[in-house]
Structures are given as structure tokens and as C-alpha cells.
């Protein structure tokens, strides 16, 4: 592991992790699929939600809901307090200096688009360079291509090796006097590779560039300490962190966010408006035009409480055990090849079976109640790098069990029986 997770309060490292008890928090895990127990191995796409998160959202609507920042009545103040509390939870979870550095967005994709539009507007001009890696999700490729079209920036891509790693020297070599930003995922959604984020951020800073970390896949396994990382931006999606859809987070260093122009205009982000000119609200409201996803922010706060109470270190230890066991079982299955064999990785496994299309694998597994992802995982350049149109991908979260890994392996034998014998 390249990073020490930022530990939550009250965490007892070493106490046994009771996955059976954890599973009772997730109602959907107890609903059969096609008459069989659900084996949900697609947490990297989106995590299932614990009752605590659903209850928080429902309770907020039932007891505290009104629009925020507007009403003079006490209910609106309560709603505003709930929203602000959620922002403080996120700030604490990421170890941000203060909650003005936390901007709520729809998801990680919108957070990256915000940076591309706003940081791009303020700090990037024709010929300036943005460095990404060959592992990126489309959400960290396309916004920069749009900016390239608009401003004539240059997009450089750090290469992958055959293990699906981004070697530090290949990345560092791309950094130069015109590099303004390095933007990369801390953990690959397609292959599970852990990137040496701290070293990459240091290298970017040494070249005079800023660093944006896409933490969508990493924050769920290792948390984040943005001060220790010293990243300039950090983004993630709430729905991958066992929270609701429709809420994401942009962390940005305060002085950078201060220097950046608004992303969208509208209500809530202004100080005053006349037809001649408007002035903008202070951080973070400057970047939150319009009524935000208030209840979803509150529920994201509950999701953070949930993972923090379980303990990120213990979650990660549990997921590592699942990963090691799954790698062992899948490696022993002769027709299967694992795509991406990084030395440091998180609990995501991409694989192919010679002669069987990933969509067929996923469908046969579905008949056994096993949910995996098949396709390009919004990372077509990764597929191209490994010469496959698509892969099957199993990913493991805090509620998965060794028995579910066995269910995956057993279902894969049905695939072999159906297509290869």
C-alpha cells in the first residue's frame, strides 16, 4: 500500500471485521435475484447502500427539509445546518484544512469538468500542457480534450507497462516547463492498479504543475488525506462510497479555488446581482449555483459516518483478503487471463476468457445471481492498450465475502461448460 489511510475516529485496528453483521446493514443483499442470493461484485461501478444512508436521507426529508440559505424560518436554518454539517464531514474525511475547500458537485465527472472549465479558464492557455495517464476513465480524458478544442492546450498521456502500471519515470518524463496540471486516478477503475500518487504529485509540483487526483476508486478503499498527499484537487463520487447518487465532491486548495472563476452562474453563487454586474459569493458557494442535492449531501455525510465507524483500515484489510483469495481462485482457472497484474492494487479484477466474449460471461454469471461488469469500463484506451475490446470485471466492497468469491469461481465453470467444452 502506498498510502496510510486517514483513520476514522474510534477505529479499532485489529478488532475482527464481522462481515455477516455488516451485511445486515444492506437490505438489497437479502433480496434474491432470479431466485438466487444476490452476489454483488460490481461495487467499483456503484456501491450498494446501507440502511443508515437511506434512513438519513429519509429522516432529513421527513424532519428537516426546506431549501437552504434562504428561509428566515427555523426549518430552513435546520436544513442549512444539516447541509453544512455534511460538508464538514467531507472536509474531515479528506483532512481538508477547512470546509471552504469542499465543493459539492453531482459526481466526480462534474468535479473534473468544473476544474477543466474554471482552472482551465484562469490558468491554461494555448500550448500549455495537461498530463494524464493511460489508465484514465473517460471522465478524466474527455474534459481535457474539450478544453484542448477550446483553448489549444496539449494533452500528454503517461504510458502503461504490460502489468497495467504507470511507471513513475514515464510519467515524470512528460512533465516540462509548459505542464500546468497533472490529472490522474489514484486507483484504476478498469484494472485496479494503485498509482504512486504521492510521488506523482511531488513530481508534478517539482515541475511547477498542479495535481488533480481522481479518487473515485481510491477513497472507498484507502480514504484520503489531501494534506499528506498535498494534491491541489481531489474528486470523488458519493455513490461509490456507499452514498447516494447525484452527489460528488471537489476538494481544491483554498487559494486556488479563490483564484478560479465560477463554473456555472445562478442563484446561491452570487453576493449581489444587478443588470450591469454581479459579484460572487465566497467559497464554496461560488461553485454551487442553484439548489444543490441537499438530501444527497446529508446522506453522503451518513455514508462517511458509516465507513468511518467500520474503520477504513479494517475495510481495506477485509478487501485485501478478498482480493488475494479471488486472484488465487481466478488464476487457477486455466482458460482465464487476468488483465492488469500490478504489484500494488485494489480489489478490482479485470479478466478475459479466450473464446468467450465478456458480455456472455456476464450473462451466464447473472443466471447464477452473480453481478459483474462487462465492457470497456469507460476506459477504452486501457482496452486498446491490452488489445481486447472489453473485459469482465469483478470488484469487491466492504460487504463481500469469501463465499461470494467461490460463487464467482463456480459460475465461471458454468461459462466454461457452456462455451468451451
Amino acid at each position: 500500500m502506498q498510502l496510510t489511510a486517514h483513520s476514522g475516529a474510534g477505529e479499532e485496528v485489529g478488532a475482527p471485521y464481522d462481515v455477516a453483521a455488516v451485511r445486515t446493514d444492506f437490505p438489497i443483499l437479502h433480496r434474491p435475484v432470479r431466485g438466487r442470493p444476490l452476489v454483488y461484485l460490481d461495487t467499483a461501478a456503484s456501491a450498494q447502500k446501507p440502511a443508515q444512508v437511506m434512513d438519513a436521507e429519509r429522516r432529513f426529508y421527513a424532519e428537516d427539509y426546506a431549501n437552504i440559505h434562504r428561509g428566515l424560518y427555523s426549518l430552513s436554518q435546520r436544513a442549512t445546518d444539516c447541509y453544512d454539517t455534511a460538508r464538514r464531514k467531507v472536509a474531515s474525511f479528506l483532512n481538508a484544512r477547512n470546509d471552504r475547500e469542499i465543493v459539492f458537485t453531482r459526481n466526480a465527472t462534474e468535479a473534473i469538468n468544473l476544474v477543466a472549465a474554471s482552472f482551465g479558464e484562469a490558468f491554461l492557455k494555448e500550448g500549455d500542457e495537461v498530463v494524464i495517464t493511460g489508465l484514465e476513465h473517460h471522465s478524466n480524458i474527455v474534459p481535457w480534450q474539450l478544453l484542448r478544442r477550446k483553448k489549444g492546450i496539449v494533452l500528454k498521456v503517461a504510458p502503461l507497462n504490460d502489468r497495467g502500471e504507470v511507471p513513475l519515470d514515464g510519467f515524470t518524463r512528460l512533465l516540462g516547463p509548459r505542464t500546468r496540471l497533472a490529472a490522474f486516478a489514484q486507483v484504476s477503475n478498469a484494472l485496479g492498479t494503485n498509482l504512486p500518487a504521492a510521488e506523482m504529485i511531488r513530481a508534478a509540483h517539482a515541475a511547477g504543475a498542479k495535481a488533480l487526483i481522481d479518487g473515485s476508486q481510491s477513497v472507498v478503499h484507502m480514504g484520503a488525506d489531501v494534506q499528506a498527499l498535498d494534491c491541489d484537487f481531489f474528486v470523488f463520487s458519493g455513490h461509490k462510497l456507499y452514498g447516494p447518487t447525484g452527489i460528488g465532491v471537489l476538494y481544491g486548495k483554498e487559494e486556488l479555488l479563490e483564484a478560479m472563476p465560477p463554473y456555472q452562474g445562478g442563484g446561491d453563487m452570487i453576493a449581489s446581482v444587478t443588470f450591469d454586474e454581479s459579484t460572487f459569493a465566497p467559497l464554496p458557494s461560488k461553485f454551487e449555483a442553484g439548489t444543490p442535492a441537499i438530501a444527497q449531501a446529508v446522506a453522503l455525510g451518513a455514508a462517511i459516518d458509516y465507513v468511518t465507524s467500520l474503520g477504513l483500515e479494517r475495510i481495506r484489510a477485509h478487501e485485501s483478503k478478498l482480493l488475494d483469495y479471488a486472484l488465487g481462485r481466478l488464476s487457477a482457472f486455466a482458460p482465464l487471463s487476468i488483465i492488469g497484474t500490478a504489484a500494488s492494487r485494489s480489489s478490482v479484477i479485470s479478466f478475459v476468457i479466450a473464446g468467450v466474449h465478456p458480455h456472455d460471461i456476464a450473462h451466464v454469471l447473472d443466471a447464477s445471481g452473480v453481478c459483474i461488469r462487462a465492457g470497456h469500463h469507460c476506459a477504452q484506451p486501457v482496452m486498446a492498450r491490452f488489445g481486447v475490446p472489453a473485459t469482465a470485471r469483478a470488484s469487491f466492497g466492504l460487504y463481500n465475502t469469501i463465499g461470494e468469491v467461490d460463487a464467482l469461481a463456480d459460475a465461471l465453470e458454468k461459462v466454461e461448460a457452456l462455451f468451451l467444452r
Partner: protein
Amino acid sequence: MTGNSEIRDLYPEVILDHSRHPRNRRTLAGCSHAGRSENPSCGDEVVVFLDVDDRGVISDIAFGGRSCAIATASASLMTELVLGKTPAQAEALFHRFRAIAGGGADAPVDGMEVEVERLTTLAGLRDYPAREKCATLAWHTMLVALQNPKERK
């Protein structure tokens, strides 16, 4: 084999047979029509080659590319069914197939009961809307090809 009825719905013997042993998977040098299409959601790619003779009949057909079992089997079956038909008959079969496998608008298929019966063996696909694109990829590609006459050999 697996004793699993859901799997059998999606992968009936006709699909397994045609995906393991695709018919007419070859190239057709000097053909009169060719087309290619992709399913961007899975990266599948199918090419279809056709020879339409002077009487307006599909006198030869072949396919290639890379695709899943459903798309491969459907392409293979299609080549058998449209051989000897006119382009209009082939299109009518396609509309019937869509109605069987997904629920598109139907079309009359005069005198092709045997072909329709063979397409009906894929009716289990109806329960898997995510795979309709797989099943119809080759058929769409055939229509693209028919719009796409090549320089006469």
C-alpha cells in the same frame, strides 16, 4: 449441461451451435455489397459481405468481425436465412426478427414460414433487452451493406 433454465433461455442450442461453429464466416472477395458496424457499448464489430446477382437475389453472403456468442450466432443464422432471398425479403425477415427478439414493428413475410420458425428459436432473447443489440447487429450491418453497393467486379 448446466441444468440452468435461465442460461438455456438466453443460450439455446441454436445459439451455442452457431457460435461454436459459425456458418459463412469468411470474406467474399469481389462481392457486390459490403458493410461494417460496431456496437460501441461492447466494442463488437461485424462486417457483412453480399453478392446480389442480376436477378436481384442474394446469391452469396458471408460475415466477419469479432463479437459475442449472441451476435456471432445471430450473424451465422442470418447468412443461412437470407441466402437466395431478395433484399426486400431479407429486410422483412429482419423486421420479423426484431419483433420476435425485442418487440419492434412487425412486417409481412410471405412464404418464409420456415425461416420465421428458425428465428423463433431465439425468442428467449426477449427477456434480455440488453442483448437485443447483440442479436440484431449483423442484421443492421446487412442493411447497411445493401445500401452500400461496391464497384462492380
